[in-house]
């Protein structure tokens, strides 16, 4: 009894079937290709987005807590009780705390702009600590400082700077708050999770009191708690700030919003992955279909191979491997397409490109497994064709 076929021979026999029908082979593998492309791009895009989201979460920290009065019945905001900052500071795990006071001051680029055109920018009176507490960074200049006293200077949020057309502080720049000129001393970077702060102009409490007679009653407080006790601080914060009406204080963790966003994206990703899997399944069925047809068409080939010495298992291996290779071809094309889509999307959305290699390998492996499953039945069928029947012309 002669020895069995070598690996390269087994491979070339399987490749023969694919190469002899190139057009059909490519069409057949498209189904798997689309499925894999969908899976790879979903994995890639979600991994790329997640990397950015996690970076934001890390830079932000999950121990930032924001507390503000609940909106009144007509949308008006109640003020927080006096001395609230001191009360909050006395909560053990609170590490840093600062407050802001919302104003209805009008911001304009210059006095040529009508007072009616405010542009949705608000003036927030705050302490120098705010920058640290919310984890902000400066594009240019500096944040308001306590030493500035009643000097009319302001730091701009990123959206504010953009709307006022101030890109940097290379030349001295002034803006008009109500009817007082303020020098711009700094511009903040975008604070991804505080869109309200991005749209603000920050000025100090002293200058606010001197020029606009604004009291230091805080409307919002921001604090950093010891990460271990964040939940506890959240629980006691409202009763501490307003013991009589704790329900009038709204406590939130900005990181919660991000985490919710992340969870939502993950749910969406699962849905897309599910759809990709369905595409894979359909692709697998398509391969099985074509292989069954192929076996019927290639009875002659099977007959010839059996008559020149092929055993049943060699015929079975040939068709099984052919099916696996078809799926592998689809998987390969799918990975390329999926990676391309991911690159395109990350460029478009301006997020960091990231594709987890093991997941891509897993996707290809999945394609190969589906190819094997799809090829199993046709291959067994091919091997069961009687040689005497196969060579009957």
């Amino acid at each position, binding site marked *: *009894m*002669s*020895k*069995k*076929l*070598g690996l*390269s*021979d087994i491979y*070339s*026999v399987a490749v*023969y079937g694919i*190469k*002899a029908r190139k057009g059909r082979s490519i069409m057949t593998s498209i189904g798997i290709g689309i499925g894999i492309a969908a899976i790879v791009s979903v994995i890639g895009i979600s991994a790329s987005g997640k990397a950015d989201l996690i970076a934001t979460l890390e830079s932000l920290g999950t121990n930032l807590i924001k507390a503000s009065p609940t909106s009144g019945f007509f949308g008006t905001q109640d003020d927080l009780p006096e001395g609230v900052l001191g009360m909050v500071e006395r909560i053990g795990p609170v590490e840093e705390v600062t407050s802001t006071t919302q104003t209805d001051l009008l911001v304009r680029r210059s006095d040529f702009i009508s007072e009616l055109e405010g542009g949705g920018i608000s003036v927030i009176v705050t302490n120098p600590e705010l920058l640290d507490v919310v984890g902000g960074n400066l594009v240019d200049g500096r944040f308001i400082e306590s030493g500035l006293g009643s000097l009319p200077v302001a730091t701009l949020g990123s959206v504010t700077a953009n709307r006022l057309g101030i890109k940097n502080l290379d030349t001295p720049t002034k803006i008009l708050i109500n009817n007082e000129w303020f020098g711009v001393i700094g511009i903040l970077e975008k604070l991804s999770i505080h869109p309200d702060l991005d749209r603000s102009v920050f000025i100090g409490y002293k200058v606010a009191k001197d020029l606009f007679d604004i009291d230091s009653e805080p409307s919002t407080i921001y604090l950093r708690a010891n990460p271990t006790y964040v939940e506890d601080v959240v629980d006691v914060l409202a009763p501490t700030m307003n013991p009589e009406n704790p329900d009038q204080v709204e406590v939130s963790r900005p990181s919660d919003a991000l985490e919710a966003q992340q969870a939502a994206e993950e749910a969406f990703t699962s849905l897309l992955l599910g759809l990709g899997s369905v595409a894979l399944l359909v692709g697998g069925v398509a391969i099985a279909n074509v292989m069954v047809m192929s076996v019927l068409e290639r009875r*002659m*080939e099977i*007959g*010839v*191979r*059996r*008559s*020149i*010495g*092929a*055993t*049943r*298992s*060699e015929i079975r291996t040939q068709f099984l491997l052919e099916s696996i290779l078809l799926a592998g071809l689809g998987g390969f094309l799918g990975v390329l397409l999926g990676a391309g889509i991911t690159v395109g999307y990350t460029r478009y959305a301006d997020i960091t490109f990231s594709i987890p290699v093991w997941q891509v390998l897993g996707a290809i492996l999945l394609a190969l497994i589906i190819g094997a499953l799809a090829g199993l039945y046709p291959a067994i069928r091919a091997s069961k064709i*009687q*040689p*005497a029947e196969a*060579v*009957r*012309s």
Partner: protein
Amino acid sequence: MNKNNTVISLNRVSKTYEGPPPVKAIKSVSIDIHDGEFVAILGESGSGKTTLLNIIGLLDGVSKGKVYIDGQDTTSLTDNQLSRLRGEKIGFIFQSFFLLPGLTAQENVAEGLLYQGIERKTRMDKAAKVLKQVKLGDRLGHLPRELSGGQQQRVAIARALVQNPSYILADEPTGNLDKESGQNILDILKELNNNGKTVVMITHNRDHAKAFKRTITLTDGEVVL
């Protein structure tokens, strides 16, 4: 002739296709074919020719009797053993050539050695040599569709020959060819036989059968003496 060089020996072989209704295709046929013989098995359609071809070609089993190839009893062999035996002992030539359409002439011939565990380079070298023998040395790289019917059948003969089989088993090899090409194929088979190869051809064409040294006529599943 002694038993040692009996290539094919059928000993009271019967083949019944299970019905319904059961068909007795071959009824107690005994044939001995010796080394170097040039035999035509002649029969009308329905005479059991194809069944006999399948049995001699080890493509199908028998219902009764024994089949010996080179003195070896094949009736108790497994499917795998039969497959290997076909590859080693029998060179098939089919009416419709049965070349693989995607392979060149040389590759088609080399395929004849594929399942014998011979490496590709040796296969291709041997294939080129045998193709020269059937006067297709200048057609090695041609695909079957680029060859005439006669040339395709010569490629098929080369594929059978490259295995260096104990016997060539040809099933109506001229059936799909014009008269001239058909004659050409017969001449090649005759030349192979002159060089010592055992050739068994199955045909319904009495004119072609005349060229053979021995004719076995089959009628209604039985050998007519």
